[in-house]
């Protein structure tokens, strides 16, 4: 549940907000991530009025209110400020009319004042709310940035996720989070993972204990957030299982409705997981640049076969 208090405390500085009245209503829940310039509703047309949105008052609204007589002004504002209205924000540090202040105080609706212009406020607020309301999920895994690619390493406990990540860090790659990754779906339709504040940049290595990577390896080896570009699932080597040998088929796994390319990487003594992870990340980069090793080889092979050329030629 996202409350007006959270918006005020987390983004108050960015939106240059100050509380004018209705502090008793700071606990109100924001139900929809939308803001509304009352416009036509202020003129008395209340059909289809979306009362769950945050109300934004700009210069025009105040000019219009000023032109109304006191009684109408009160009635219009009364109709606008419904029990569901989470908050009212005034742009450009306008001084809200006394009726608005009184009404907000009476109904316990927070009345805030922002420093920026109405349009600026509207777009910033919409973006912030969309971000806050974006679907998110906590996943078990380790998120590392390898050659600029966000790699989410997953697998059973004790398969060696943390050890693999430590190896990657040692080779100059970056840790975002070990064990718990909070994944958020971003507006541009990609996933972003970050750690949870308390255990950010901490790792647990069997036999050593909890270590802080940021202190051990320095600030260059950690990152706060990163997009999740590929998933690598580590699993114990199973002789009876068939593992991908060519790499033409691309598996994906869906997280929050977004498909992410997924590789299954079997682990056994002697396989250098760190090197393999680097290779997967590099190969992914190559694909992004338009070169698909497996497909390229496949098409060359087919061409040769169809031409009937000698394979030694």
């Amino acid at each position, binding site marked *: 549940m996202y409350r007006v208090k959270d918006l005020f405390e987390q983004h108050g500085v960015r939106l240059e907000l100050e509380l004018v009245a209705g502090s008793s209503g700071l606990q109100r829940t924001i139900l929809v991530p939308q803001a509304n310039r009352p416009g036509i509703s202020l003129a008395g047309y209340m059909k289809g009025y979306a009362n769950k949105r945050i109300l934004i008052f700009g210069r025009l609204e105040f000019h219009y209110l000023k032109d109304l007589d006191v009684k109408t002004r009160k009635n219009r504002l009364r109709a606008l400020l419904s029990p569901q209205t989470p908050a009212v924000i005034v742009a450009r540090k306008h001084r809200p009319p006394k009726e608005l202040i009184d009404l907000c105080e009476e109904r316990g609706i927070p009345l805030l004042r922002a420093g920026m212009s109405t349009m600026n406020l509207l777009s910033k607020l919409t973006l912030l709310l969309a971000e806050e309301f974006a679907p998110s999920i906590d996943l078990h895994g380790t998120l590392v940035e390898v050659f600029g690619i966000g790699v989410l390493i997953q697998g059973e406990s004790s398969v060696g996720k943390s050890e693999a990540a430590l190896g990657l860090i040692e080779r100059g790659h970056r840790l975002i989070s070990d064990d*718990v990754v909070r994944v958020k779906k971003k507006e541009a339709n990609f996933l972003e993972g970050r750690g949870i504040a308390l255990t950010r940049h901490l790792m647990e290595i069997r036999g050593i204990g909890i270590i802080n990577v940021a202190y051990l390896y320095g600030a260059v080896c950690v990152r706060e957030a990163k997009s999740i570009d590929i998933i690598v699932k580590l699993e114990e080597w199973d002789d009876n299982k068939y593992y991908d040998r060519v790499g033409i088929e691309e598996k994906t796994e869906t997280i929050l409705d977004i498909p992410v390319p997924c590789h299954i990487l079997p682990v056994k003594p002697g396989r250098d997981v760190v090197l393999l992870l680097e290779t997967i990340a590099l190969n992914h980069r190559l694909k992004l640049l338009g070169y698909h090793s497996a497909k390229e080889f496949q098409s060359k092979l087919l061409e040769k076969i169809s031409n009937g050329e000698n394979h030694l030629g």
Partner: protein
Amino acid sequence: MDSATKNRIELEVKIKNPMGLHTRPATNIVRILQHAKCCVQFTYKKTTINAKSILSILTLAVPKNGKLTVVIEGEDAEVVLPKLMRVLESPLEDISVL
């Protein structure tokens, strides 16, 4: 009913340890679950984590009297449950279960 649904246990536990779910009880939980085949998840304040990982448990930072939802799923769920409950519900670190 297939075995997967049969061996699913979900319950709510109130943490009695005066210091909450701190490092020592978390270590004990991980030790109990180390060889367990079942999947164990804890949920506290809408955050769900894998209980086999100590850092994940510590991430929750459950205080005394915090209500933790525990889900155990897998063939040895019934074996794991009593051991796990003893650690979660005991007010002091009880290592006799290990």
